[in-house]
């Protein structure tokens, strides 16, 4: 069970990293900066 949970936790981190990277890349690709400027000036 512990082994399963460890793999699950590692996979969560891995996928979170993957989605964070593609989210940023896609938003940047559209010319939309992301990150600290969550609410950029209109």
């Amino acid at each position, binding site marked *: 069970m512990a082994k399963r949970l460890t*793999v699950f936790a590692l*996979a969560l981190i891995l*996928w979170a990293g993957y989605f964070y990277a593609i989210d940023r890349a896609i*938003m940047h690709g559209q010319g939309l900066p992301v990150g600290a400027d*969550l609410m950029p000036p209109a």
Partner: protein
Amino acid sequence: MRRGPLVVLLLALAAAFLLLPDLAFAGEPAPVPSRADYPTVGGMTGRPVVWALAQMHLFLAAFVLAVPMFVLVIELTGVLSEDARYDSMAREFMRISMAAYALTALVGGGLTLALFVFYPVVMDYLLRVFDGQVLVYALLFGLESVFLYLYYYSWDALRFGNRKWFHLSLGLVLNAVGSTLMFVANAWVTFMMAPSGVDSTGAVTGSIWQIMRGPLWNPLNLHRFLANIAYGGAIVGAYAAYRFLSARTAEERAHYDWMGYTSNLIAVIGFLPLPFAGYWLMAEIYAYSQQMGITAMGGILAWLFIIQAVLIGSILLAANYYLWCGLGRTEGGRRYTPFVPFIALVLVGGFLVWVTPHTLILTPEEVRMLGGTRHKVLGPLGIMPAKNTAVNLMLLATFVSFQLFRRAGRIATVRWAWAGNAVIVALYAVAVANIVGAGLYGYVTPTVYKVGSSVPQVATTLSVIVFSLLIDGAMNRGAVRREVHWGRMAVRSQYALFVLPVAFTWMMGLMGYIRSSVRTNWHVYTIMKDASPDAYIPTIGDAGNAITLVTVGFMAVIIFVFWLTQLGSIKQPAPSGLAE
């Protein structure tokens, strides 16, 4: 004789035909029609006639163009797996399509005639713009017929070895010709919506390629290509359900159950990426003309998108319900049934969010009671970030149903199967969080971010589908296959297969109407005004009635096609005393 120079000359002529502007009419503006240019026949104006015929032609054409596409894949699967059942199923699919082909041509001919009778000036202009390209269309139509008949009638003559590969190549050419035919016709439609290759007066300034390749051409090509596959799958699924319900033997039931399952799978595969293709088309419409985009999604036509949501919700619920019923076909499927209520919850929840309108049509009294035109709690669910989130979660839920069904028939034997499962569960968990997070992000950022953050949502859904299939594929390498009891299916599940084509047909009529209506009172947007008595957008009720009428008409046609197909497989027994 050396053929090189001749080939070069022919290529140069083809390039000139495609690339050079049509000099004969260059500089001649589009005509300005008057009310007298729109004849009536028996007191009837052109719009209802052309509307009904164009819609009916599109339904039939979408079906007959789609079937050979997945038939080719099924036939190839049969060759690679050396399982003759695929081959017989592929041929049966083609038989349904063949019965519909002549009707498609017949309605297409009627539509052409109606267009020339009711809209002579418009057709004169369009023929002038597209010029020789209409002959290319006629040539392609001829080739489509030739290859369709060759492909179907040579099935038994080209069954094995190299001959089978030759038969597959015939199918490939048939699909190439069919797709090109559709792309050419799409160019006429998108030219009317977003003209290119002409100046502001409508005078031809570009080559036929520039005229065809308008801003909406490729989005429409992709959207129709995917929609056709989903639609074709849905219709043959209804045929399989019809045969399943009328089957007299267990063997027949098993065959048509398998056919129904395959059809549903085709419909779902075509349908999953469809909202994204539709999104691209709408984004391009907005990019081309914001006014046109707002007419579609923010004006009178916006309410039709609510009806669209109802229909898409029905399609997803029906397709999922069929998959859930299918879990009973294997002994291993039953262990997944506890997940079904949760999947259903996501589907129904997403469906409810999707049908929530942004603003309501209210009486002054109701506005006063509500404190505005928007509901305080539900109002925020009416905007796109909520709807994008809902649709992506619904698609993920549908994919889960499909994945569970797939797993029900296999027992993974690899040692790391437990780890694979953990990675897939983690993938879903993070993906859902990312989709919901991107949706919320749309609420706290300006509009441009709202639209922009929907793209990562799409990428997330597609990522889940791709990675899940890859991990599942690796896990199931060398898996033990469970016995599938084809035919062990509840009768009620077959009615889900009837829901799909009806909802698809209705939705295609509805969305086609929106696509055409965004031109408002223009035949060719911003270039040629409509001066007919029908130059207005009908009320939602009138449009709904017209679309429903054509949908019912098409259902009658398709029942006739099913009957014809079944008739072809019936053989009258010889009377007593006569040899068979």
